[in-house]
């Protein structure tokens, strides 16, 4: 199996992605879902294989995410944002996938 090296990026508000900056992940600070959408579009062309995205932003850009869902890469990993608990968007997503796959919940 041949492995290719890929880049990691993180998109989110300043507080949430500070931690990613600290360990050397390339970060893109955005404040609105529209900006995040733009960043995601440019990122796609640059062969990032893993992108971290805050749930807060993700829940407002479902269209773009839906399109990316069926691609093998990039893998978008949703993280709760630093401001309080996550909104459960990622868990909801997983649940939806399970329902889609099995025709019923787990």
């Amino acid at each position, binding site marked *: 199996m041949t492995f290719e090296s890929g880049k*990691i990026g993180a998109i989110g508000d300043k507080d949430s992605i500070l931690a990613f900056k600290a360990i050397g992940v390339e970060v893109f600070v955005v404040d609105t879902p529209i900006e995040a959408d733009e960043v995601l579009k440019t990122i796609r062309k640059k062969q990032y294989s893993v992108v971290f995205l805050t749930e807060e932003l993700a829940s407002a850009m479902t269209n773009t995410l839906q399109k990316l869902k*069926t691609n093998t890469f990039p*893998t*978008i990993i949703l993280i709760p944002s630093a401001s309080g608990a996550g909104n459960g968007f990622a868990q909801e997503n997983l649940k939806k996938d399970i329902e889609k796959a099995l025709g019923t919940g787990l």
Partner: protein
Amino acid sequence: MAQNQINPTRIELRKCKTRLKSATAGHKLLKDKLDEMVRQFLTLARKAQQMRQEVESELLSIFKSFALARAIVGSQEIESALYMPTMSVAVQTATKSIMGVTVPIIKTKLPEQKASLPYALASAPPELDQAIFKFYDFVQKLIKLGESEKICALLAEEMEKTRRRVNALEYIMIPELKNSIQYIQMKLDENERAALVRLMKVKEKLEKED
């Protein structure tokens, strides 16, 4: 009805029979594929769900440590301390196939040596050091989670498609073909009887004339 459009001929009957045969075979294959996918998906999805919960609570506690550090020395200090990271995380990717679905494999590549912190120790509170190291170890888990979730999403997509095909075959194609076969068979039998009766009549007539 569809059966009104087919000619009740022997050739048509044979065609329908072969189609029914391949449809049944295809249905069985697809159903087996779906069953196997369900089996694999179940374990993967359960794992992903569990991982997601673990990761989220862990991540929140790490964020809390960062917030704490920020509260002690102020956001600007923290940001400037972290501005030039000395650690680096990269990933290596490949793809594999689960039941014919191309899914990613993502390996996190951490440098062999644990890198030093990007700032002078005195310039930031020890909470920050802890948080960074914790996060550095944690990111591997996070990426693993992303990989599992992606696999689940891709598998789910394929399973939905397969299920649709199985249902289309089972509830539409196969019954329709069976119907057609029955219809043709009946028509052919009918024709045969008609021919027989006609012959008998003709024979009767001929005998009368003689």
